[in-house]
């Protein structure tokens, strides 16, 4: 069976109608708004549990700090106040020395001196019952930091250079045998990236199958099919629906992400969101993303698109094999079986750091939807293998579309109990044989 342009005439009209009805659906809009509210609320809630709130930063009991700097390095006291917000209301008086005996409650004296052995910082506090040990330590760290920066600045080293110089690094010592036995594999990072991407694919696939099956069965059970097909070909009918659901779903996901970032930005104005950021970065995912480059966005988008098309066409076929809304659950279960099956397998793949497994999971149909971009991003496969994976996935999409084109009309006209995959394939074979 060859496709012609006529087979897709009217796709745009089906697309517009389906998308419009999705957006008009009260149930869809209510669930979208609830989801957006939950996402918006999740950031401040997370910030509350993960990081100290900016509003809850308690001011230090230190009212005044006398700073006596005898070293000649110019210390920026404002920096101490901005680095540690608990000292925002503390008054710093430069070039004033105070003997510990005369310090009152809420007062401290910092003396920085220089001798033959180096520099010394002496912190003296007036009344210890008011100023806690924690506050003392914080002041100590803030002063040390300010003094260090002052020293660097005297050498012409400024903020960015300092950040570079003070960035942490690891040192590892090993013998030849250690090297040979070393497991050069970061399981945590591999698992994290695979897990997050698999959940994304699974969510999109399950959502798309639910929407497409519902729309297809609704139309079929409405008994409008014949009146539709006098104006439009079956392929245009299903293509328009798949594209409309795709735009609706991707739009929904984009709105989720947008609301998350907006909430993150707004929450950041009132609360400390560094805890959320730290949690994400400390998960280990980003340390392993060796292939992060502008090409990453099209890689993810193309992979998601191919995955979406695979499962949505499959959903269209399974949906059309139903005759009434009562059978929707069965059709959903069939697609879910494929999606969850592939998802579960992919969760185990990071546990086996074998090169052949990376290649296999990237090329095997259905599994590759979940694995190929992840394996590429993690550097386990190269670009040629990723392209080959896409080619195979596109082939699967093409095969499903051909199958759909071959039997879609018969399935639309079919009335009876839900056809299973084996019946659908048998129908396709019969159609082929009848030619």
């Amino acid at each position: 069976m060859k496709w012609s342009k006529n087979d897709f005439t009217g796709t745009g009209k089906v697309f517009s109608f389906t998308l419009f009805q999705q957006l008009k659906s009260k149930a869809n809009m209510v669930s979208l708004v609830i989801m957006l509210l939950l996402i918006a609320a999740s950031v401040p809630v997370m910030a509350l549990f993960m990081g100290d709130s900016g509003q809850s930063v308690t001011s230090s009991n230190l009212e005044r700090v006398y700073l006596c700097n005898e070293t000649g390095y110019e210390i920026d006291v404002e920096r101490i106040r901005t680095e540690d917000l608990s000292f925002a209301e503390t008054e710093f008086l430069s070039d004033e020395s105070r003997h510990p005996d005369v310090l009152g409650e809420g007062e401290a004296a910092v003396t920085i001196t220089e001798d033959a052995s180096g520099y010394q910082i002496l912190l003296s506090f007036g009344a210890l019952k008011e100023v806690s040990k924690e506050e003392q330590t914080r002041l100590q760290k803030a002063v040390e930091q300010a003094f260090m920066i002052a020293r660097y600045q005297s050498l012409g080293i400024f903020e960015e250079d300092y950040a570079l110089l003070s960035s942490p690094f690891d040192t590892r010592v090993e013998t030849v045998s250690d090297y040979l036995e070393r497991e050069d594999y970061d399981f945590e990072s591999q698992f994290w990236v695979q897990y997050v991407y698999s959940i994304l694919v699974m969510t999109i696939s399950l959502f798309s199958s639910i929407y497409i099956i519902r729309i297809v069965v609704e139309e079929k059970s409405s008994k409008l099919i014949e009146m539709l097909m006098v104006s439009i070909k079956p392929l245009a009918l299903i293509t328009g629906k798949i594209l409309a659901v795709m735009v609706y779903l991707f739009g929904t996901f984009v709105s989720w992400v947008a609301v998350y970032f907006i909430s993150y930005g707004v929450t950041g104005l009132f609360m400390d969101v560094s805890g959320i950021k730290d949690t994400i970065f400390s998960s280990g995912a980003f340390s392993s993303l060796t292939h992060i480059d502008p090409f990453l966005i099209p890689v993810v988008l193309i992979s998601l698109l191919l995955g979406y098309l695979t499962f949505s066409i499959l959903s269209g076929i399974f949906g059309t094999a139903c005759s009434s809304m009562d059978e929707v659950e069965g059709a959903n279960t069939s697609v879910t079986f494929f999606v969850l099956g592939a998802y579960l397998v992919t969760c185990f793949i990071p546990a086996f750091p074998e090169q052949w497994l990376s290649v296999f999971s990237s090329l095997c149909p259905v599994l590759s939807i979940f694995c190929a971009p992840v394996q590429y991003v993690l550097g386990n496969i190269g670009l040629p293998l990723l392209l080959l994976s896409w080619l195979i996935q596109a082939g699967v999409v093409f095969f499903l579309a051909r199958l759909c084109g071959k039997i879609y009309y018969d399935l639309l006209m079919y009335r009876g109990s839900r056809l299973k995959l084996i019946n659908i394939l048998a129908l396709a074979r019969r159609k082929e044989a009848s030619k």
Partner: protein
Amino acid sequence: MSLIVSDLWKKYGEKTVVDHLSFSMEKPGVYALLGTNGAGKTTAIRMILGMLAKDGGEVLWNGKSLSPKSCNIGYLAEERGLYPKYSLMDQLFYFASLRDVPKSQVKERIRYWAKKLEVEEYLYAPLPEKGMRGKKKEKPRMPDQLSKGNQQKIQFMIALLSDPELIVLDEPMSGLDPVNTDLFKQVIREEIDRGKYLIMSSHQMATVEEFCTDITILDRSKAVLQGNLNEIKKSYGRVNLSLKTETDIAPYIAQSGVVLLSEKEYEYRLKVQNEGQANALLGLLIQNDVTVITFDLSEPSLHEIFVEKVGEGHEVE
């Protein structure tokens, strides 16, 4: 304009479902496709409309293959329904767009057909009455809130929205009450007057007889009778005799050799072999001083022709 269906056939495996069907419509009018259940009418219609691939034959409209591109087609399918959750107006606009109705004319056409088919109240929210300001505005009804008959009217609207040249109606009047049946008949008559080509499939022979000029009777995928309805009837001759008398005439009927079909309070339905036999019976009655109130000699009805033709095949079996 002309519609030519020639040598159309379709097989499912070994079973032939439409067996080399041919007919044509050279001028506007109604062509009836009749047949028992499973005779192949709907399959033939689907093939004519290009919804179902044919194994052989062709369908030409003005010499070109019939398609939604070459001909503006309106179709009321036997299996009918509406999207239950989408508003009626959205559905009408959708079908109008699928049938390429110019956007500027859609509202006007919907309004026209809504008025014609008396469904305005279901499509348009009524204007608030005086003194009702501030009260909740009434919404147009959803499809599942309509009766079956009113849903059928909306489907008929969908079929007619594009002002089609060729209208295919598969059992258009089934399930309608007498008032709505008359409404549909009125619309069909108007469409015929406007020079439209109609193909109608129905089990209601009286309805078909009312409109159609040509017929094909299908029996088990084959055309068993085909042609102009008047000529077919003429070929049968005037063989139906309805008689109403004041007294019992059973002995005279038996004497004349006429076949008695039914009798109720001296109203007789009789089958004669020819007009001569009918006249002979009338002569016998007059001769015996029987008062004849009604003497109506007519051709067989389409119903009788249908039963006879389709019955023949089944008797052989």
